[in-house]
């Protein structure tokens, strides 16, 4: 009568179907990341529930022998179908990749879960998903302890740097920099996004023309500090046609 079953509620951040028809999912839950397998799942009702970005409650069964827990049941708690739209899809992937890279299995963090769930909701519902993704990426990084250094030059340590750091995605002083300084809104964003509330950041979006530089900074910062993340490319079709 010992119970090796556990109930977890979380969001699917990875999903893979094996050739044998099993579904392997990674969930981000308030109790940390959970990786589990639904055997033969592709042929049953679990296939509908265990979909990318779905919020599901699962019963997982862990045997001492197996390294992967088994999904026994799953109940859908929420879906965000608009995440499949081209202007939102890749941002949702980015959030999932960051969550997967930043948080570990068994690492209890209700805060991480709430932040990630809020990020997906925002990307799904807000008219400006790009801005949500920028803000929430820095918030997730900050929660995991990766905060860009903004009060000292990343190369020489001079105070109040304001120029892009093309290698590390932080800030450089005028002397060390080869690029012109960030415009004030971007600088304000980089300096304050981590500790500022999400709502406050959402209320003051950086103008669109300044964002490519911010994305470059984020990409460099993540690549250096966290590692390889793939979901940088955007999927708005017009761009693809011209490419």
């Amino acid at each position, binding site marked *: 009568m010992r119970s090796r079953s556990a109930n977890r509620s979380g969001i699917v951040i990875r999903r893979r179907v094996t050739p044998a028809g099993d579904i392997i999912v990674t969930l981000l839950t308030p109790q940390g990341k959970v990786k589990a397998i639904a055997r033969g799942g592709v042929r049953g009702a679990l296939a509908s529930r265990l979909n990318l970005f779905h919020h599901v409650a699962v019963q997982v069964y862990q045997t001492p022998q197996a390294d992967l827990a088994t999904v026994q049941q799953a109940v*859908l708690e929420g879906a965000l179908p608009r*995440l499949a739209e081209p202007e939102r899809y890749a941002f949702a992937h980015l959030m999932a990749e960051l969550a997967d890279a930043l948080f570990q299995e068994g690492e209890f963090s209700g805060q991480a879960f709430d932040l990630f769930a809020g990020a997906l909701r925002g990307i799904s519902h807000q008219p400006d998903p790009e801005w949500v993704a920028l803000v929430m990426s820095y918030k997730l990084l900050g929660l995991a302890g990766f905060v860009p250094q903004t009060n000292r030059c990343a190369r020489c340590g001079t105070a109040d740097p304001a120029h892009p750091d093309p290698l590390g995605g932080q800030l450089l002083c005028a002397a060390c920099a080869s690029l012109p300084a960030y415009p004030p809104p971007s600088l304000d964003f980089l300096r304050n996004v981590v500790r500022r509330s999400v709502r406050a950041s959402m209320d003051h979006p950086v103008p669109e023309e300044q964002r490519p530089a911010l994305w470059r900074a984020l990409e460099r910062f993540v690549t250096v500090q966290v590692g390889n993340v793939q979901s940088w490319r955007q999927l708005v079709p017009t761009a693809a046609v011209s490419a």
Partner: protein
Amino acid sequence: MKYPPSLVGLIRELSRLPGIGPKSAQRLAFYLFEQPREDIERLVGALLEAKRDLHTCPVCFNITDAERCDVCSDPTRDQDVICVVEEPGDVIAIERSGEYRGLYHVLHGVLSPMNGVGPERLHIKPLLPRVQDGMEVILATGTTVEGDATALYLQRLLEPLGAVVSRIAYGLPVGGALEYADEVTLGRAMSGRRRVNEAPTPPRPRRDEEDGAAPVPSPR
């Protein structure tokens, strides 16, 4: 006891195949050991021949051993519909259903940024010149989030070209009971319900006659 290296090698190669775990690989290896040489050689021949002869059709990217695939080179197929699928196996699945007489286009994947699969990794570009104004393009990618995203992406691309873009139906599988359907699918089956009107006999009787159903004007 140590296994002979060539047995180990065979088990290792076999266990690389999808759906074949280490135990099945071992069982397969022992089975192959017991077979006469001719059988092994026939299997080896089939593998090499397939690798030598098969390639993707330059038009639709289905598998073929000819210049163009069997569908692309069949003039009796309806040239005004293209069905877009993820994998070559999906072409076979649809052909088996017997409900389709048009052309295909095989993407060889779905959009998945987190796995590094963007539009340029799929056979999307060669699809565009195939699409003519007024043609129907059926998006038959899987009903996962990835399949939906790929379909939405293609829709944006194809509608400006004048295509009538459609998506395969979501709903209850044939033979199903509501009780056993998951709530997500059941919700789609409800919202995607279709009007069953007593239409007069259609001009030319068709196999799929009962499916000429009209949609419900105002679903709630």
